[in-house]
């Protein structure tokens, strides 16, 4: 049976070679679809990574009175700690805060060296260990002597998270739409190529070829076109990443711990699988129509 498999592979390659224009068209269509899908996925992934990193910030930040000495400031932190046993309380001195900022700014961190005086206040970060009423916690912390101001970022972090989830829903939905549209366009492009060979299909069937035998070379061609499309799309995404990532990195530097999404080997494998699948399904759909008669 191996000689039949080999014959089908040969036939598929020969067909690609004999009619390069329709296959190129299919490759271009698949490339565009995968590129758009990939770019969309990365945008959504990047946006979500940013949002999540913001979400990881402490729940309530208490800014301490600048007039306090560091000793006094630590005392305020201790008072908060004993008043809120259910919360994690971290004291951040102005120097620590400055160091953190320096790290977050990355390459831009050097600009901080020009400061004659540390402008940052000491802060106390209070994050509840379980789910707690942030508004109430913030209100209690603000009553502690020595606390100048409180900021309970969770409120808008929650909103960000909702936004992130919406973004994910939107991303998934639009990816599915792009995928479906791509499949239809690809199937139609392949159908053009199959249409040119409908006589061949008819004659194959008349001399006793099974549907599977007729379909096999087309499926192989579709999968090959899909893989070529995936390779081109990956190259395109990589190029765009090269261009945009250095700029995006600055934005990501502000979000502690977040990484701008990179095109990894897994992503490439995923693209290849998606390409092959789209090519296969497209060919299957395209041939099915001509097999019926």
């Amino acid at each position, binding site marked *: 049976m191996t000689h039949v498999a080999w014959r089908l592979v040969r036939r598929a390659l020969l067909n690609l070679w004999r009619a390069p224009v329709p296959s190129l068209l299919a490759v271009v269509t698949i490339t565009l679809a995968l590129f758009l899908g990939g770019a969309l996925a990365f945008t959504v992934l990047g946006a979500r990574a940013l949002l999540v990193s913001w979400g990881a910030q402490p729940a309530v930040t208490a800014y301490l009175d600048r007039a306090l000495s560091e000793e006094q400031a630590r005392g305020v932190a201790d008072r908060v700690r004993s008043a809120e046993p259910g919360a994690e309380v971290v004291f951040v001195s102005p120097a620590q805060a400055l160091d953190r900022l320096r790290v977050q700014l990355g390459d831009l961190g050097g600009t901080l060296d020009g400061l004659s005086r540390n402008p940052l206040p000491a802060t106390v970060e209070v994050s509840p260990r379980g789910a707690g009423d942030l508004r109430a916690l913030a209100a209690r912390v603000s009553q502690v002597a020595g606390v100048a101001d409180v900021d309970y970022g969770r409120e808008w972090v929650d909103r960000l998270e909702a936004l992130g989830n919406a973004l994910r829903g939107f991303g998934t939905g639009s990816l599915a739409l792009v995928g479906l549209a791509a499949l239809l366009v690809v199937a139609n492009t392949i159908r053009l190529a199959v249409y040119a060979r409908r006589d061949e299909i008819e004659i194959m069937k008349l*001399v*006793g070829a099974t549907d599977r*035998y007729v379909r096999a070379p087309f499926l192989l061609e579709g999968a090959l076109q899909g893989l070529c499309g995936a390779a081109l799309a990956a190259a395109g995404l990589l190029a765009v990443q090269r261009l945009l990532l250095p700029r995006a990195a600055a934005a990501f530097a502000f979000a502690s711990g977040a990484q701008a999404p990179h095109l990894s080997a897994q992503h490439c494998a995923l693209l290849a699988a998606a390409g092959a699948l789209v090519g296969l399904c497209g060919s299957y759909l395209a041939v099915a129509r001509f097999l019926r008669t």
Partner: protein
Amino acid sequence: MIQLFHVTKRWSDDPPVLDDVTLRVEKGEFVWLTGPSGAGKTTLLRLLFCADEPTSGQVIVGGRNVNRLSAGGVPFLRRNIGVVFQDFKLLPNRTALENVGFALEVMGASDAKIRERAHKRLAQVGLADKVGSLPLRMSGGEQQRVAIARALVNEPAILLADEPTGNLDASLTDSILQLLFDANARGATVVVATHDRALLGRYQRRTIQLHHGKVTSDA
């Protein structure tokens, strides 16, 4: 080998192309199918290899009711039937050798076997020096002979030929018909559609006459 019971075929509301045809062809018979143009000869042959379905009636080929054949069974029926199509149905981008080998290819024969048998058949139809030619570079008669070689190549039990000599001169006609008689002598059941009355006179065999889709004589 071939049986038709009250077979009617109509396209839309036109008068039927085949009208209540009942006939029987025994295994190993050679039959002429004749009648004026439009009588329904091609239509009848197409029913036999499942290219069309009868509107009503039963078609039995090789002991199997082809109307009840599953879609998966059709290819296997066709591998036992060699067909010479009126319009040849050759693949324009394949050589004569590839076209003839095609019928063996879909059955999964080995490359060497395909080559050898296709060569032999092309030589039999007098095209040994044209094996590498594309159909478009061949004359009508040459294409017809390629089509005949393809129909014969896997020694089918049933041979259906639709005007197999329509494009051939007298001497080629005789040699091609001889191939069909040879296949018949080896046991194949052969049905040849033709409106060439001279042939019927020269080679006296059972003749089924169709007229407006009805069998008007069978002798």
